[in-house]
């Protein structure tokens, strides 16, 4: 017993000593540490890994980008938030709209990219990409990955319900919905479980169709939010059973099983339409799919606007060492090079705030989505992106309360407003 005790205590001591001797990096080599969610099963992972490998090889001995794999999104956010709060932000990281981007940009903890963008690098990015995210004309959080949300529908199900086109108005949409339901199919997948993602997207489409371009101008007080809630509640009559407790897995499962007519998600999902694994009787899901535009709402202010978001921002921590700052910029420029981004988009199906010529091999559905997106006269953010994080954490609770009749449409909006006010 005594021996064991001594052994354990000695071991503990050794550990604390060993731990103190953290190995220093190789001489002269600048290490950029990059906790990244574009790893693992993420569709952007393979090409990013290739780029980093090539970059490291090109700069062997002087710069090395070290990726820290982060696959669990929520844990990644927790970690980034904690590191930034404690003043030890990683050299480079990926943020999304669940962070308070404005506050981050104002904090001065991130590298000011404006001088580099003004030098010509900025010309690589799409026009106006930075407008919504710069503070006092300075860009420190770089919008990088884009997403657009357009409904994709299963033409076979529409045909079975007697429809050869996708409706142009929501009035027509609900007529079609009745036909699809009568034919024994679900119209769309809604979910109030998990983060309420699909319902959040449908709500955004409705908010756009009803409130138009400037719907976010006066926060949630715009009557469009109440009206859209009414329609969203109606949509729950056309989804599968148990949508209130459903999560992304349920929505995706129904769509893959081809019992649901319309699917709404970002462009990263397109790759799944082409997977052999998801083919039925040798027919790829992509072969029976078409891309639709958001219908217009009678009496609404929408004019065919597009719901988008910034799916990923790149943010670099402020550096004291100019050499390190230069290295980080070099890497950022490297991965935002239009030709590379074109390849990246091709391999992943993702979209970027970089001007690039799409590869002719781009998947057909991706091309169609881009076409629809380019036709849109204006864009608005999805509701999660347009409001503070408190909105998105409260959204599933508010939707389930709405659909279960715990609150009315006004109560739904009030509940979200209350959550925002509290934060």
């Amino acid at each position: 017993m005594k021996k064991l005790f001594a052994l354990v205590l000695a071991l503990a001591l050794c550990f604390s000593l060993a731990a103190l001797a953290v190995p220093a990096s190789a001489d002269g080599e600048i290490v950029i540490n990059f906790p990244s969610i574009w790893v693992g099963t993420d569709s952007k992972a393979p090409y990013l890994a290739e780029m980093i490998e090539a970059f490291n090889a090109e700069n062997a001995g002087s710069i090395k980008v070290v990726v820290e794999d982060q696959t669990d999104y929520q844990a990644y956010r927790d970690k980034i938030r904690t590191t930034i709060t404690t003043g030890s932000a990683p050299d480079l990281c990926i943020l999304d709209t669940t962070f308070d981007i404005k506050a981050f940009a104002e904090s001065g903890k991130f590298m000011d990219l404006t001088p580099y963008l003004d030098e010509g690098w900025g010309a690589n990015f799409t026009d106006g990409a930075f407008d919504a995210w710069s503070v006092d004309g300075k860009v420190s959080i770089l919008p990088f990955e884009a997403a657009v949300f357009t409904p994709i529908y299963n033409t076979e199900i529409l045909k079975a319900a007697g429809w050869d086109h996708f409706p142009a108005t929501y009035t027509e949409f609900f007529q079609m919905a009745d036909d699809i339901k009568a034919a024994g199919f679900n119209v769309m997948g809604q979910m109030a479980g998990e983060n309420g993602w699909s319902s959040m997207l449908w709500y955004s489409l409705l908010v756009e169709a009803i409130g138009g371009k400037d719907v976010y101008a006066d926060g949630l007080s715009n009557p469009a939010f109440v009206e859209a809630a009414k329609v969203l509640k109606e949509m729950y009559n056309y989804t599968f059973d148990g949508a209130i407790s459903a999560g992304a897995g349920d929505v995706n499962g129904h769509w893959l099983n081809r019992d649901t007519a319309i699917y709404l998600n970002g462009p990263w999902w397109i790759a799944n339409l082409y997977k052999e694994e998801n083919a039925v009787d040798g027919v790829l899901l992509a072969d029976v799919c078409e891309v639709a535009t958001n219908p217009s709402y009678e009496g609404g202010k929408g004019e065919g606007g597009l719901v988008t978001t910034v799916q990923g921002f790149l943010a670099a921590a402020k550096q004291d060492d100019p050499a390190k700052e230069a290295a980080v910029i070099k890497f950022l420029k490297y991965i935002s090079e239009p030709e590379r981004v074109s390849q990246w988009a091709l391999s992943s199906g993702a979209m970027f705030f970089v001007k690039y010529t799409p590869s002719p091999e781009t998947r057909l559905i991706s091309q169609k989505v881009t076409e629809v997106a380019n036709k849109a006269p204006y864009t608005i953010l999805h509701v999660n992106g347009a409001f503070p994080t408190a909105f998105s954490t409260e959204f599933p609770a508010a939707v389930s309360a709405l659909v279960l009749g715990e609150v009315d449409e006004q109560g739904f909006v009030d509940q979200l407003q209350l959550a925002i006010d509290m934060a």
Partner: protein
Amino acid sequence: MKLIRSDRKALFAFMAPAILVMILFFVIPVIYVIVVSFLKWNGISAPAFNNLKNYALLMKDKSFSRSVINNIIWALVAGFIQVPLAMVMAIILSRKPKGWKFFRTVYFFPQVISGIALATLWRAIYNAEHGMLNGLLRAVGLGAAAKDWLGTIQTAFPAVLIYWVFYIGYYMVIMMADITTIDTSYYEAATIDGATDFQQAIYITIPLIKKTSLLTCVTLASVMGLRQFEQVYMLTNGQPANTTSTIVLYMYKKMQNANYGIASASAVILILVGVIFIICIRKLFEGRGDRPPVVKSVRRAVK
């Protein structure tokens, strides 16, 4: 035992590591949490003193009071339904029926299975369309009762609670280990007196484990109930309409919103509720002092 002078140094040396760890990892961090609970702070900008406003906001927030109530129910169910169930099984298995070793091992399995897997399984069981529970109901002709168990206000919280009540393995193992240390002569004497297994359990086993493993398990289970987070987070995320929320889940969401002030205030309230709970449990177990007759007589004989 009295403390001898020479023991003082030894005592100090023995307490030192634990005290050091407690100060570093609990006292300082909790002071930090208490301080932050009086601030308005998003983790990035400069914090501002917010007086008692965070606490006032919590008191007004219905979803927070719902979380507190849920946690109290959870702790009570854990301490007074789950643990007694575990105790019954511990008593049964310690009588060594056929295959008891196998069962003892099997009952422990859920403790080592990742929470993600358990949550997905139970979501599938409670699912409205192809869920097993609805399937069973339909099979026995109760199809009318089939529903979206996790998406209905009345059933969601009970559903989250009930599935988990029957995972008793951990507490059962603790109590079984305790029961095996009971002197067999008690049982032998009782058997000679003609006491049945049931009577032996009531008059020998339970009184003898009451102040040790039973108290431990009740406290442990209640604390786990109060700290409940992972299962709810993965099973329902607090929905529908925040009716299955718990304090830690509530706190976690406030942290996601970068509202560290309110998050910390809810953590402080959780600690307060917990301390009250632990004190009550101790009082409850200290309350009844008398030992039942069988034990008394056996004890006298042993002494």
